[in-house]
């Protein structure tokens, strides 16, 4: 919901605090601020109004009311506040306009007005500026007023050109379900085919749809520059019916957003009166009379709390006096009876119905920062070990010992036993039935990057995760190995998998369940493997990522490897070599891995793989060659060191 600072200011006599101060107030005590932008000398605050506050805060009036409470300032005007005596105007009934609601559930209330003699034209500056600030286009004074009222009070309204409706000893509006196949062209020219999950407003004298109920007006009775007489609609439509209808015909509007979140049954009356008042002000004309389909009476919803209940819930020390003071800032009716506070929230606060709702209202005005954090009371309930986590950690321990590294791949994939009904993209329209397909792809990519991983003999990776074959969801584990040199590759891979399998079975004390071995990947059903095992008494103590680890993004540029072998004296330290490599290689050195070491005649030969890679360019042979020359030069200059 885009909120204009200037629009809010209209509600207050004194200047509001700065927009950044308002942002703080909204954030910490009411609604999240998604952004603020400057528009032609106004500041527009984008408030994230979620369903709990959509009944009252999808309009500037509701937001101004929030500010009045949080800043403790009186509003200078409030269309919804004060006495209800202004509603008596509604009882001045029209003699020319009538309404018949055929489906009360769809449309619990329909109010309307017939206004004669308006002059359609350009909107006054104040109106244009307000709408444009929040990103709405000005159309004409009459239509702009309906938008203004929607973004002010939260009540969507609509205007029909009365002379485009059939007058058969009066204009008659009806609300009914659409007929299957019934068509309507809405404002803007798009045509929609309807069915009985949608409701329509009709010109009842010829049974023609003139609007899609709660969604959008039709072209047939559109207001244009020649319009003189108008019918105003201000109604309440059923929240989920409107939501489903909108989804069905794939048409979402600002009106839908308000109806689907439910507007108060009282609101349409305020909406029609406000539209009538403003239209007469900016477009002239005179109200002939009103209609209202609602026969019911407003229900009060009293919410009762005790001060002890409040403090037990919030962990606060709020006194009755403070609580009453806060309720007074809201201006809500209340009574105190001993330790009990009974509050009657106003009609627009559909979200305040139970004690917890009132605790929240009092708590956020009191300030959550004033609630002190506490640790939980002792003793804690008896702890238990989660079997799946315990065994997952146990198998990870085996993997660490066996030099197998963990990875995670996508559950959403392009094949599997279950196809999703709603999909993101064609290559992610299934959920995986096994881990091996994803792991095989990860393995292939690991082979290409083996030197960057410090692997020269064999790449070994694993994944633990849920899979979803036909038989149902279970936790699977897969281990993939790939030899990096050709010699007896397949045999070495088989042996490696066999070693890992033995180590797992020994640690678990059980055979692995449902083992499959394919292309160097062993997969088994971890859930079934541990099903009959006892729950361990504690979790294995496995390492965390080291404190000093600094992440650098994966470089998109190719890496280059070089080997170096050096004779050193027997008492030399390894870092005498690696320090020199890092000194000249700097950030280009990704890894240094020792691959050979032997002693002879009182000397030691040490050999290293060095992997070079830049974060921002492709390294040339020359560049790497120059670095290697410097490294070799310095190593050769050390006493009794000799590059081989």
């Amino acid at each position, binding site marked *: 919901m885009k909120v204009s600072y200037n629009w809010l200011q209209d509600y207050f006599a004194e200047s509001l605090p700065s927009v950044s101060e308002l942002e703080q107030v909204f954030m910490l005590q009411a609604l999240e601020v998604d952004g603020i932008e400057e528009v032609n000398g106004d500041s527009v605050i984008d408030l994230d109004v979620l369903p709990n506050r959509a009944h009252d805060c999808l309009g500037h009036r509701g937001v101004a009311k929030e500010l009045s409470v949080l800043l403790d300032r009186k509003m200078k005007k409030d269309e919804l506040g004060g006495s209800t005596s202004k509603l008596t105007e509604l009882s001045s009934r029209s003699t020319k306009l009538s309404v018949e609601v055929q489906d009360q559930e769809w449309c619990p209330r329909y109010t309307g007005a017939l206004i004669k003699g308006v002059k359609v034209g350009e909107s006054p500056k104040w109106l244009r500026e307000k709408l444009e600030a929040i990103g709405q286009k000005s159309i004409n004074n009459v239509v702009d007023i309906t938008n203004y009222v929607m973004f002010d009070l939260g009540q969507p309204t609509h205007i029909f050109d009365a002379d485009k409706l059939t007058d058969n000893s009066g204009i008659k509006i009806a609300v009914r379900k659409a007929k299957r196949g019934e068509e309507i062209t809405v404002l803007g020219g798009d045509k929609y085919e309807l069915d009985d999950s949608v409701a329509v407003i009709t010109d009842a004298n010829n049974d023609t749809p003139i609007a899609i109920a709660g969604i959008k007006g039709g072209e047939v009775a559109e207001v244009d520059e020649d319009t003189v007489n108008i019918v105003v609609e201000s109604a309440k439509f059923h929240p989920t019916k409107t939501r489903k209808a909108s989804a069905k015909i794939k048409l979402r509007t600002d009106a839908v957003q308000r109806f689907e979140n439910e507007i108060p049954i009282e609101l349409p009356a305020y909406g029609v009166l406000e539209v009538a008042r403003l239209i007469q002000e900016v477009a002239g004309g005179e109200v002939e009379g009103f209609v209202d389909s609602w026969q019911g009476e407003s229900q009060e919803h009293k919410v009762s709390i005790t001060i002890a209940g409040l403090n037990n819930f919030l962990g606060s020390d709020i006194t009755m006096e403070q609580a009453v003071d806060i309720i007074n800032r809201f201006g809500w009716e209340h009574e105190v009876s001993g330790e009990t506070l009974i509050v009657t929230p106003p009609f627009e606060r559909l979200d305040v119905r139970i004690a917890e709702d009132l605790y929240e209202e009092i708590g956020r005005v009191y300030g959550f920062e004033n*609630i002190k954090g506490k640790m939980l009371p002792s003793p*804690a*309930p008896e*702890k238990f070990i989660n079997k799946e986590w315990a065994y997952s950690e146990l198998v990870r321990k085996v993997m660490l010992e066996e030099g197998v590294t963990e*990875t995670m791949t996508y559950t959403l994939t392009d094949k599997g036993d279950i196809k999703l009904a709603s*999909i993101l993209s064609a290559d992610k329209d299934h959920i995986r039935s096994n881990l091996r397909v994803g792991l095989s792809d990860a393995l292939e990519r690991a082979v290409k990057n083996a030197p960057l991983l410090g692997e020269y003999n064999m790449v070994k990776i694993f994944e633990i995760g849920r899979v979803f074959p036909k038989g149902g969801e279970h936790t699977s584990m897969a281990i993939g190995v790939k030899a990096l040199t050709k010699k007896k590759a397949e045999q070495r891979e088989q042996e490696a998998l066999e070693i890992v399998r033995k180590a797992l079975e020994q640690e678990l004390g059980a055979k692995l369940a449902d083992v499959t071995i394919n292309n160097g990947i062993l997969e088994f059903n971890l859930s079934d493997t541990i099903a009959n095992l006892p729950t361990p008494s504690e979790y294995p103590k496995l*390492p965390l990522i080291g404190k000093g*680890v*600094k992440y650098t993004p*994966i470089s998109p540029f190719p890496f280059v490897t070089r080997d170096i072998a050096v004779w050193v004296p027997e008492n030399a330290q390894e870092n005498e070599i690696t320090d020199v490599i890092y000194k000249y290689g700097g950030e280009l050195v990704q890894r240094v891995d020792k691959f050979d070491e032997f002693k002879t005649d009182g000397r030691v030969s040490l050999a290293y793989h060095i992997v070079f890679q830049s974060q921002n360019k492709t390294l040339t042979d020359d560049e790497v060659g120059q670095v290697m020359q410097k490294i070799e030069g310095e190593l050769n200059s050390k006493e009794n060191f000799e590059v081989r």
Partner: protein
Amino acid sequence: MTDANNTRQVAIHPITSAVREIVRIFDKLGFSVADGPEIETDYYNFEALNFPKDHPARDMQDTFWLPDGRVLRTQTSDVQIHFMEEHEPPIRIIAPGKVYRSEATDMKHEAQFYQFEGLVVDKKGKINLGHLKGIVEYFFKEFFGDNTEVRMRPGFFPFVEPALEFDVRLVGEGVPEKLQGKWIEVMGSGMVHRNVLSNAGLDPEKYQGFAFGTGIERLAMMRWMIDDIRNFHHGDMRFVHKFIAELEQVDKIKDK
């Protein structure tokens, strides 16, 4: 010729490391680990959590639907219901696990990610919002360090009332410039809604509880300054190999 450390370097997936650490932090506070299925019914994922059918609140979580009407769970909060159905309070659990959202992926959004959920339920009067705040502050200071500030502000999730958001801010030395002093939204929470307690078979007149939940990738991204969430599930070993654990710890494991 001696090796200075006599140790071996191992790479740990950052999600595994983060979950392991989270489990340990909460273990000290008396929390146990619970879990639930990733394919979930509409009831456990939404209805029991006070998301009525066809309610706009469901728009807050773009959902992957299965042809049979079940869903890939959109939140680990489903574990709350499963656990309360089977256990009498007092309850203190955390539930780490994978969740799914049907949204376009980019550097900040991923269709699958990890969350963990925390749930505490006890007799009315024994625990309150102050405990929620205390636990969350404790957790973030343990996870991000003592130079972590935490603030609590109103939010909305149907299964809690009131709903609260927690933001954290890292201050002081050693904090990367990108994060220095900035409030970052990290956790949703609140007092368990009475409808949720009732749905799980607990009497809301007798019991009270709070719940909290957060995305594990988001915590990991802040912790290690990871720029792109898609790295976590991409199966690229170059990513995992950026996260090295002290090797002597591994030897200790072998000795055990």
